[in-house]
């Protein structure tokens, strides 16, 4: 519900061009967008234990 609201404001990153992402360099946001795309490519995301598996 909340993400849908947010989604109306944050663009769908899947539509963002590689050039635009490259502008972010090596920042945290760039890494976060990379991870976002990795998660989309995966069939499922596993929840890891908070205290055991970093």
């Amino acid at each position, binding site marked *: 519900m909340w993400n849908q*609201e*947010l989604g109306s404001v944050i663009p769908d990153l899947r*539509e963002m061009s590689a050039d635009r992402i490259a502008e972010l360099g090596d920042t945290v*946001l760039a890494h976060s967008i990379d991870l976002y795309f990795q998660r989309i490519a995966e069939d499922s995301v596993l929840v890891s234990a908070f205290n055991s598996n970093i």
Partner: protein
Amino acid sequence: MTSVGLEGHPAPWPLLDLDIAAMRAAGYQPVPFRQFILKVHSRCNLSCSYCYVYEMADQAWRGLPKRMSPTVTRTAVQRIAEHADRHNLPSVDIILHGGEPLLAGAEWLAELAAMLRDQVPARVNMSMQTNGTLLRRPVLEILKSAAVSIGVSLDGDADATGRHRRYADGRNSFGDIADGLNLLASPEFHDCYAGILCTIDVSNDPIAVYEALLAFRPPAIDLLLPHANWDEPPPGTGYADWLISVFERWYGAPRQETRIRLFSELIQLVLGQPGAVEGLGLLPSTLVVVDTDGAIKELDSLSSSYEGAADTGLHVSSNSFDDALGHPTTVARQIGAAALSAQCQACPVMEVCGGGLYPHRYRHEAGFRNPSVYCADLLRLIDHVRNRVASDVRRLTALGVRLDLSGQANALGHRPGRGMLGRQRPVIPAEHVGDLSLRAVFVSGGGLVEG
């Protein structure tokens, strides 16, 4: 501290009130376990003041064997293999834990890793969580050869670590941990380096803590809220401020210096992806624990709630892990929003917060269907991260609009925002490209740029 048998039931929800039979009749299917914590040694060479194993409600460790016996070890491996085979799992994560797992001996751990890889019909990812005091070259050479990745617990610099992570005689453990971490961070062993776990103490300066951890070049850091619940409140206040300070230092760096898992997963959730950490989001937990004596247990840190909170009454000698999938606590940790309180279900950030870490929801004689005792801190942190990320992504998008509409300097207008953000949203007025939302404009703009 609370105990079973005093006054009412310590956790009627989920242990009494969650109607699993009705859920099954309605089609509920549990999610197989994928992560197995093996508590290979029940003792520790440190005496950390906040340890949920030795210093909190559950003192069951006193009756455990020191090291997992050969029979229990073999049986646990067989049960994991059985579970992987039955559910056709592509991989399993094995986390060696304790107590201090290195007290079991590095060669013993390597033999266990070999046994698991030999018998489990799935890829076996081995890791270990250690206090770091025993990490020396011969140990690391053995663990490297056994492909065991290593996470170390450290709370910051010497002063920060010395507040809690001490030997039984009171000595600060920092120097010994630092020696181990420096070796682990060296090129020879860096491939085995999983990262650092840090338990937050708000008495410590947040930036100093982060930079002290960073000095050991960890590939990842995680920041843990101290275990607490509604009966045993957090030891301090201001956790949101503390975390936001670290977030800004980390997020604002010109390059990502390390991954901070709490924040990385929060950003994924803000962007609309599931978060891969227990304690945020609504994904089902797939973790189970085998104690040193072979008992099958729930999330280890439940021991901080009340005596016996992590118990299932199951044992690897007579029960499969499928039996544990039907335990009320497992079910509660797998059903997402359905396990949350009415207050959480009505909260606009429920999908991101997920109710917080399960043990932090505990209240005696009510159980676990409550908001986290850290609710207010989580809400502030989530709000901050959401606004920061939304602002940056909007800025990126605004750049796209400017590029697309060069020569039309007045093309970008604003209208009131809606929903959680409550801010003005840039739009293109109808006379230019029609009354499109920012997202639609960006999608169209992307096409223009690429075309």
